[in-house]
């Protein structure tokens, strides 16, 4: 983004609704309100119609005596115009959300950039950026087809926050999902909780919730994207939450070995390559103290894999900017965590309707012994 593109127009302050600052102008707010309604309709009514249609397509193929390996199923689903229309709706709504938000924040860009600059120099908490950080290619993609991704757009944090709000259908406007998950943080058995590190923290919604759930702990949020961290810290300052944010790689935190009680990775692992995943797991193991917990929350790979489900998850990977979900769904997360020395249990993540799992990974004495063997 050329910084000549930002405007210097000062908007009226539209205040906040609870924890959520209102979007800077009424039209922008209303346009995204439409998208919230549109997504709710797509997730319910349109989804029912496409599931029905997909079953018809599969049944017709089976009646013809066809097997349906993935390439054939994909071809049939792509050719069906009802299913193709649902894809068009989905991706168009993604693009509309991102462009309306980006255009809107850029219209008053000077104001929002200045806000983040001023917050960067103030507390509570802190913001450490590293302009010399080598950002690996795996982190440079336009994830969720968000323009510039997490690293290439100054307003990445703003766009991510309000874009995901309509994805959550308004049910996370007050960080409800993150607060609920933080309240059920997987804690060490001995109860010692002085240092929590949230890796791949993004805009810090879970990081802030962790600090609010565990006020006695030092909470750090690490991410690769400076724009995301600038937004995260500015929001933390606005909400008065004391969190230290730093631009560091999850696989190279710079933290002392054995110095952390809990490491959290919330919906991080489906956005990293498998080589990076291995390095991140090893780094989490290194920085955790014995008895510490690595709480990994991410997509459940154990699901009903119908032909159409596989197609839609592939479509999310290919069309919706999820470059690493193919790696993720073919990756043995339990195996990687165990190989690193963790003892792992899984359970459903709160407020995720079974789509997300927690891999609760403990750095135990048993695990250390197995690793050493």
């Amino acid at each position, binding site marked *: 983004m050329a*910084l*000549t593109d*930002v405007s*210097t127009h000062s908007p*009226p302050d*539209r*205040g906040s609704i609870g924890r959520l600052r209102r979007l800077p*102008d*009424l*039209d922008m707010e*209303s*346009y995204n*309100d*439409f*998208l*919230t*309604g*549109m997504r*709710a*309709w797509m997730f319910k*009514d*349109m989804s*029912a*119609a496409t599931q*029905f*249609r997909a079953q018809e*397509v599969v049944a017709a193929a089976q009646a013809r005596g066809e097997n349906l390996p993935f390439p054939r199923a994909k071809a049939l689903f*792509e050719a069906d*115009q*009802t299913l*193709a*229309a*649902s*894809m*068009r*709706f989905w*991706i*168009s*709504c*993604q*693009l*509309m959300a991102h462009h*309306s938000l980006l255009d809107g924040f850029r219209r008053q860009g*000077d104001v929002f*950039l200045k806000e983040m600059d001023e917050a960067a120099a103030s507390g509570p908490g802190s913001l450490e*950026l590293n*302009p010399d950080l080598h*950002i690996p*290619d795996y982190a*440079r993609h*336009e994830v969720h*087809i968000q323009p*510039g*991704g997490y*690293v*290439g757009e100054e307003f990445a944090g703003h766009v991510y926050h309000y874009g995901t709000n309509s994805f959550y259908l308004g049910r996370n406007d007050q960080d409800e999902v993150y607060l609920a998950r933080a309240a059920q943080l997987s804690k060490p058995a001995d109860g010692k909780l002085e240092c929590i590190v949230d890796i791949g923290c993004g805009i810090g919604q879970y990081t802030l919730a962790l600090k609010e759930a565990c006020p006695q702990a030092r909470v750090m949020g690490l991410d690769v994207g*400076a*724009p995301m961290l600038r937004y995260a810290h500015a929001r933390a300052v606005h909400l008065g939450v004391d969190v230290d944010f730093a631009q560091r790689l999850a696989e190279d935190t710079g933290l002392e070995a054995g110095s952390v009680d809990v490491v959290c990775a919330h919906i991080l692992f489906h956005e990293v390559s498998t080589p990076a995943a291995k390095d991140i797991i090893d780094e989490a193991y290194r920085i955790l103290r014995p008895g510490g917990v690595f709480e990994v929350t991410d997509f459940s790979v154990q699901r009903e894999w119908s032909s159409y489900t596989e197609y839609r998850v592939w479509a999310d990977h290919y*069309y919706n*900017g999820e470059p690493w979900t193919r790696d993720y769904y073919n990756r043995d997360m339990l195996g990687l965590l165990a190989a690193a020395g963790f003892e792992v249990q899984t359970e459903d993540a709160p407020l995720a309707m079974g789509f997300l799992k927690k891999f609760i990974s403990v750095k135990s004495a048993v695990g250390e012994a197995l690793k050493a063997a």
Partner: protein
Amino acid sequence: MSEAEAGQKSHTVDFIPKDAENFVFLENQVLDSLVSSVLELSAEVWTLKRRSLFTEALLDAKGVVTKHDIETYSPSAEETAEWAARRDQFVKRIYAPFGRKAPLEKPATPDQFLDR
């Protein structure tokens, strides 16, 4: 570029783009574009309707309103819920045809009409 902008440091790096703007899903590219255009138009119509809702609520309460009043108005909890329901009805009215469960095979229609 203003002096302030000239001094503004960039916090961004090169990224790997995804050419999402040029995806085409429907067989007919014009139809594919039309769906996107209709979605945009719907968003614009709802944006106008919602501005009317804000304006009317303020006029009812105050009699005379300014642009600033409209931009900064905070709907009550009741208004928020009612207007969200109206939005959902708006979406459903326009898009209900796309929510039909369409079987692959169209049902057969009668072959006979005139008795001859």
